[in-house]
């Protein structure tokens, strides 16, 4: 098969990020400079994001059997590139105080971005596994990055090994599931399962339904590991806590979003939720994730761990909309997932951004006590953090509320009353630990506590945080344009 220029054009964002990686390697080889490396990364991601934005209207093309470039995948390519850009800007001040070479971090970050872009554009098992592994491999490195640093307070090596082992196990489960499906259908395309099971209701009697269910369970377990859904969530808080903040932010936002898009695409294409047992398993996982995430977050005293557990809960909320895709005809549940993922990326990025601004690679300020009196010592930062936390809690005026509204709408339409009740209860519990941090910031600052350490505040990361706050409020108050955009791209799923 010959690739022509017009075939490659839709892949432009992916190619640009790949080119960035190559250029980065050369730049580092020629001259080690933290600033230049960071600038090249930012520039490359920016150009890729612009390319994705330009291509977005009217794109719908299968490029090789492996990758689908439609408006939906380009939308998430755009989100991924912009989020990666934000993370690299915020990494710069964070890594300034690292007593080791900082340049390769950006290399890994760009590589991980490639993986994420492949994941959101994949409708084939091969590209899915390639994307997942590219992302995970780079993340091992990013998580363990400060390993040679003498004053890294946390445990990057522990976190990295933990992630490596569990990630490998989950990839194993994924591959096993894929192999089982291939054995039955002879196809590695996502839609293969649906086509065969639709055609084979009588004629292909050799195909065994319980075989599919086992395969789907293995696939689901693998994906649930990556999404840190309960009961596959145990690694999450340790890895979040041990990893350097930019790596945590990347894992929590882009890593989760890309994986969820993949899950959504597969489940819709393969019609996986038409099996009743899959629906019940996923309902159970959703309930467990929401309850476990929210309840365990109550016990934490580290902001990073709180955000880790809250991410488990948020993934559980998202599963409700995923389950709803099976019960309703329209695109509302896909829209709900898309909007919520966008909201989740914005608010998590903001929350981790605030933590990374007050931290540096030498000292991470992530205990709740560290934030005592932040409202009075640094009002803007506190306002940003409060905004992000209230958004995670789903309070109006913020994008998190609109996201939750979408989820509830999808849930009501499909009549998933039990799951909705759990969602309401979970958000109620969630409020408690988000407000706990907010209250800490409101308390008068004592001399002994509070952020004595200035952290890695810089104009760049502060600007990014303000931009995120602006997006948070804009999408919370006037989401109509984004809503209609999401409505138009959701038909591609």
């Amino acid at each position, binding site marked *: 098969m010959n690739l022509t220029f017009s075939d490659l054009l839709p892949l432009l964002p992916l190619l640009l990020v790949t080119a960035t990686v190559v250029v980065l390697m050369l730049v580092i080889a020629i001259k080690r400079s933290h600033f230049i490396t960071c600038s090249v990364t930012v520039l490359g991601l920016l150009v890729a994001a612009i390319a994705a934005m330009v291509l977005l209207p009217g794109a719908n093309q299968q490029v090789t059997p492996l990758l689908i470039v439609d408006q939906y995948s380009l939308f998430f390519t755009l989100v991924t590139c912009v989020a990666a850009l934000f993370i690299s800007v915020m990494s710069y001040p964070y890594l300034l105080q690292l007593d080791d070479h900082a340049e390769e971090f950006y290399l890994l970050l760009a590589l991980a971005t490639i993986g994420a872009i492949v994941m959101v554009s994949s409708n084939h098992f091969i590209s899915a596994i390639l994307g997942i592994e590219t992302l995970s491999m780079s993340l091992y490195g990013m998580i363990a990055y400060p390993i040679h640093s003498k004053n890294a307070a946390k445990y990057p090596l522990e976190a990295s090994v933990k992630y490596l082992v569990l990630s490998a196990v989950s990839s194993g489960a994924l591959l096993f599931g894929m192999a089982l499906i291939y054995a039955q259908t002879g196809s590695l395309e996502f839609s293969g399962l649906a086509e065969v099971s639709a055609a084979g209701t009588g004629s292909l009697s050799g195909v065994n339904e319980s075989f599919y269910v086992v395969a789907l369970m293995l696939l689901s377990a693998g994906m649930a590991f990556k999404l840190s859904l309960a009961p596959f969530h145990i690694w999450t808080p340790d890895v979040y806590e041990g990893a350097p903040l930019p790596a945590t932010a990347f894992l929590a936002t882009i890593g989760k979003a890309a994986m969820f898009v993949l899950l959504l695409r597969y489940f819709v294409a393969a019609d996986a939720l038409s099996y009743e047992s899959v629906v019940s398993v996923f309902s159970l996982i959703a309930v467990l994730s929401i309850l476990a995430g929210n309840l365990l977050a109550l016990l934490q005293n580290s902001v990073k761990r709180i955000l880790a557990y809250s991410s488990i809960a948020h993934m559980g909320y998202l599963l409700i909309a995923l389950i709803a895709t099976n019960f309703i005809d329209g695109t509302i549940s896909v829209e709900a997932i898309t909007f919520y993922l966008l909201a989740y990326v914005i608010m998590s990025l903001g929350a981790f951004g605030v933590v990374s601004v007050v931290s540096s690679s030498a000292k991470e300020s992530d205990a709740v006590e560290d934030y005592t009196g932040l409202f*009075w010592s640094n009002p803007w930062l506190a306002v940003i953090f409060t905004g992000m936390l*209230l958004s995670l809690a789903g*309070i*109006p*005026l913020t994008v998190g*509320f609109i996201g939750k*509204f979408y989820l*509830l*709408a999808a849930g*009501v*339409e499909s009549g998933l009353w039990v799951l*909705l009740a759990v969602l*309401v*209860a979970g*958000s*109620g519990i969630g*409020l*408690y630990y988000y*407000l706990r941090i907010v*209250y800490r910031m*409101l308390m008068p600052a004592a001399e002994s506590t509070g952020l004595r350490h200035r952290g890695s505040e810089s104009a760049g990361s502060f600007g990014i945080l303000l931009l995120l706050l602006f997006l948070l409020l804009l999408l919370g108050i*006037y*989401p*109509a344009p984004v*809503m*209609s955009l999401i*409505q138009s791209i959701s038909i591609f799923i």
Partner: protein
Amino acid sequence: MILVLLIAVLFIGGVLAWVAERIDDKLPRVIALVALLIDFLLMLTLLNAGDSGDGSWLVLLKAEWMPRFGISFQLGADGLTVLLLLLTAFLGMIACGSAWDEIKERTGFFYFNLLWTLAGVIGVFTALDLFLFFFFWEVMLIPMYLIIAIWGHENKNYAAMKFFLFTQVTGMLMLVSILILAYFHFIQFGAFSFDYFDLLNVNVGGKLEMLAMLGFFIAFSTKLPSVPFHSWLPDAHSQAPTAGSVILAGVLLKTGAYGLIRFAVPLFPEASMNFAPIAMTLAVISILYCAKVAFAQTDIKRLIAYTSVSHMGFVMLGIYAWNIQALQGAVMTMLAHGLSAAALFMLAGGLQSRIHTRDMNDMGGFWARVPRMSAVALFFSIAALGMPGLGNFVGEFLALLGAFQASIPLTALAALGLILASVYSLWVIQKVFHGEVKANNFDESLLSDLGRRELVFYAAMILGLVWMGMYPQSFLNLSSPALNGMLEATAQVAVTVTQVQL
């Protein structure tokens, strides 16, 4: 347009007040007062706004907001709304006055929160799109949370958290109910809508209608509050700064009652009719139980908080009796209780800021020391216990009169609440202002009588209560078209429902 202006003035005033703190920390309170005064005057012009040609509505406004879900930015005001808006702005000014000297730290941020809470309340009273309504319902929470959490007393974290959790979680239930309505509109009319007038035509039916109605009922009766969802109120009140208590008792509680009148009953007439006996029973339990509990308090602010719950029981009783007298009574009680409870909280707050205690066991014999304050306190206690000639009496009397037509035994029990009210009101007066002076419990030199500024505020509230008591017709005239409209609409539904059943 004027309704948008009402909200915008407060939002902008809040931001200005916050910014103005940098210039002078006495400037924010002036800005807040001016913003509220502007609002008050704007509301008065609403009275002459004339007919918009749409029944009882004085003004209506609609603009597209989120077309994907049929959500519009829709505001409207009828006589009922205007009354509550006037109460909001009036008590807003009173709250400003009570915070005038009490709040010394971070004044800019305080008035920012005060104005934003009130802006949220005005939004709640005027929103006619259920999404927008919910939006404002939650928006007023956060600044109120901050007021309690930052400027509150010794146990503020607990109280603020409890307040937030109760209201937010029950609010989520309401959101689910709103979505059920919108979805049934989608099924029955082919499109999502959150428009109040569209949703009035939706018939959910069956068990789901009851559940959806309960979502609204729980949210509103938590805010009202009513037994069994009342336990946040005494904590929130006792820990909030005076201005916070004034707003909470005077205005925020009324949003719950307003929600019941405007949304819970008209949107689900059939389910509400079936549910009315339970709601009225809960109301009677609130009246009697909380009056009894109030009597057992030693913390003066907790006591007033429990009496609030008790008085709001009459409101709920009136609403679920659902006839014109009962509804008029509920509205009058809302207005009169707004003034009397706000005044009592101001007095309690005034005492606390003078002698640094809320414990009534430490008080006694104040009449000799602070005669003006004592006289004012006596007046408002008597108003609260329902003395004829004052606003509270008119409200509670009408509510009982209406409820009598719905259920005689429940009304008889509720009327006992009036006796309990006299007991605890006079008991407070006896305990705090008469008897022996227990001077060794606090620094006596701190106890000073009401200043001129405070007197002006109390005088304004006294005037309001006397007006309501002596010439209630001016208020009743304003609210009756709106209430009659709602009664007719639900009566039609009730008729068609019975016809269908036949």
